[in-house]
């Protein structure tokens, strides 16, 4: 990693903040919103320290930071997404600066400086970061708001593991309606137990099952609602491993699969090859019984623990995001709104 530090545009202090964030990214429980906010905080520091040297330099610094974050934790797309969104704002500004005729903001001022001064650059980028931050704060309420349109009285819902947006979605529906929720525990991290605990105060009937019982019960389920770790550019979704099984079961029984996720998880990458998506965790996640670890035969046993599953877009009926519900085939349109094409690879 040292070779890249030579031409670093950002100072030592920022570097320390970056290291801190990289560490935080690995911490569990995974919270996409927290990562997004931390990334934005870091971007603020970078922008304010580099802004005096001009917009070009800011762009380079943000790009470099995004790359560094990806290196820190390759399968966490949220941090890069935030960098991409800030980059898009910078690109727009650069375009205006190089092409004054496009600038409609101060039409009528005849003698205008072609290159904006450092202060305005900083202000514009900071403002856009604040806007993104406001948007992030509204993600959960915006998703929860839509719950009553999808959850009706006495329905049986199934969910897999724990997701913050799904929890809020269910809670907001439970305020008005009574329904039944089957929670598959998500064996990878047992986060379903957490959801069961968090919902225990609500007016819902909860049944906790093991992941393997999902197919057995699917015929009695009206809707499957799950969270996601990333929404890919073709509308497919990355989620905790085991989710594919749930999605396939839902399709077999023609039960609609609804994904609840904020748009900060939207990634302009395509899941070309499954191998780049698989993130393998420690075998200790699989084998709980420590006694076997010391036995001689055990050393020849290969134990794999994939963290993520890819659910192709054809399994998904609806994506519920903070800007409304849409089908996976619509994702490409939103991508253009959020990101610049040239930033797909930082």
């Amino acid at each position, binding site marked *: 990693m040292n070779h890249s530090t030579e031409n670093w545009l950002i100072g030592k202090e920022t570097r320390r903040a970056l290291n801190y964030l990289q560490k935080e990214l*690995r*911490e*569990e*429980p995974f919270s996409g919103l927290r990562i997004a906010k931390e990334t934005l905080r870091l971007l603020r520091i970078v922008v304010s320290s580099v802004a005096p040297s001009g917009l070009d330099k800011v762009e380079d610094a943000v790009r470099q930071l995004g790359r560094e974050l990806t290196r820190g934790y390759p399968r966490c797309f949220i941090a890069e997404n935030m960098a991409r969104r800030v980059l898009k704002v910078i690109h727009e500004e650069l375009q205006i600066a190089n092409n004054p005729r496009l600038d409609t903001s101060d039409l009528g001022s005849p003698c205008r400086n072609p290159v904006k001064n450092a202060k305005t650059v900083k202000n514009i980028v900071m403002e856009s970061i604040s806007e993104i931050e406001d948007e992030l704060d509204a993600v959960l309420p915006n998703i929860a708001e839509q719950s009553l349109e999808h959850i009706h009285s006495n329905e049986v819902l199934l969910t897999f593991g724990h997701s913050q947006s799904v929890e809020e979605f269910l809670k907001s529906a439970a305020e008005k309606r009574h329904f039944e929720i089957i929670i598959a*525990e*998500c*064996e*990878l*991290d*047992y*986060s379903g*137990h*957490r959801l*069961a*605990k968090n919902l*225990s105060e*609500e007016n*819902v*009937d*909860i*049944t*906790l*099952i*093991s*992941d*393997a*019982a*999902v*197919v*057995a019960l699917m*015929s*009695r389920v009206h809707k499957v609602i799950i969270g996601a770790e990333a929404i890919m550019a073709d509308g497919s979704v990355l989620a*905790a*491993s*085991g989710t*594919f*099984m749930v999605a*396939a*079961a839902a399709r077999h029984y023609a039960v609609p699969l609804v994904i609840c996720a904020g748009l900060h998880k939207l990634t302009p990458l395509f899941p070309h090859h499954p191998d780049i998506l*698989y993130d393998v*965790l*420690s075998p*200790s*996640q*699989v*084998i*709980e*019984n*420590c006694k076997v670890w010391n*036995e001689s*035969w*055990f050393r*020849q*046993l*290969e*134990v*794999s*623990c*994939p963290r993520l*599953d890819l659910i192709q877009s054809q399994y998904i009926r609806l994506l519920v995001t903070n800007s409304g519900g849409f089908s996976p085939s619509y994702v490409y349109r939103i991508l253009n709104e959020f990101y610049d094409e040239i930033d797909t690879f930082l």
Partner: protein
Amino acid sequence: METTSEVDNRHLSASKKKADKTKHTPPSRRMQYDDPSAVAKLKKTQIVRKKNAERAVPLFSHLPQYEQESIFSRGFQKDASELHPAVIKLGLQYASDVISGASSRCLSLLDTLALVIESFSLSEYLETRDYRRELDKYLRRNIQFLIDCRPLSISMGNCIRYIKSRISQLSPSIPEAENKSSLLKTIRNFREEKFERAEEMIAELGAERIRDGDTILTLGRSSCIEEIFTKAKNCGKDFHVIVLDARPRQEGLALCKNLIQMGVKTDYSSLYAASYYMRDVNIVLCGAEGLMSTGAVISGLGTACVALVAKEYHVPVMITSQTIKFSERGHLDAICFNEIGNPDELIGHEGSDWFMTGVHNEKKFANMLKENWKEMKNLKVLNLYYDLTPVEFIDAVITEIGIIPPSSVPVVLREYMSLS
């Protein structure tokens, strides 16, 4: 999950069928545990006292619920002195999961029933009584105790039905000792034919299907599948096995141990890794608990999940099963027939501090509910034993009579029934 009266009725109806071949009757109805009158009737025959379950999942209220207390703390509601000591021992082994595999449960049942029949003698009763009727009565009480300990599996029901039909065919004019020895001989033959030779045959047929370089995925542990792997390895075949396990019953590690000691390359993971591995898999091999007349397979929880993922990846799914596991019932889903296990198995787990030091601290959540889930009024925990794999997910069934499509189950049943 069959009661003695059910087994009884069916063997009666089977013998009636023989007398009057044109008469068609459906298999007798399964005991429905949410029917108060049926439960009241059952209570009279039960030997171990039952308690009412506190927190049943409504969808599964027709099944016997899990008993939190052991047999001893519940106590007997009837005189248990008539029970054979071997039966009591076996019942406790069933209840505590010491004997839990489908085949081993069935084999131990046959052995124990042979012991019971051997030690039964009319001299304790009136010598003038009918040997067949008294033996039948005696067996029924003993079997009821076994059912109280754990519901019978499909193959166990079939075994008991076979023995009962043999008892009813004994001749009253022949002396007791002769009857007894002929009965014991038929049980021995039955055991040899339906289990020992069947398993050998299945191992041979299954091993033929394994080619060099194959990757085979299996779930949990099944004695038949272990035999197939042993046979294939002995034939010098070079293959790779992926063993998956489904919580809460994790039996796959024992299979891994045996495979590695055999020298087979083995991978192990949990059920959630099915889609991760499935790209490289050639065959999915799974054991079964029973095959329904529709061709659907009842087997350990998770089999349907694996079969479903295999279908999505276009990987063939093969099931191994002796014909003794075939049932004439037709089931739609895993709700019709199942067993409910201890919910605490799902809540707690054997995690240790070892994990807490890792990067991923999520394991802590497993114990989140441990202390207080029973205080949460709206929370129910469901621990199922079996699931039903629909017929369209299964490509072939390996039985001792050959590799057949699952839709042939009723045909085999009909042929085999008419032969025996």
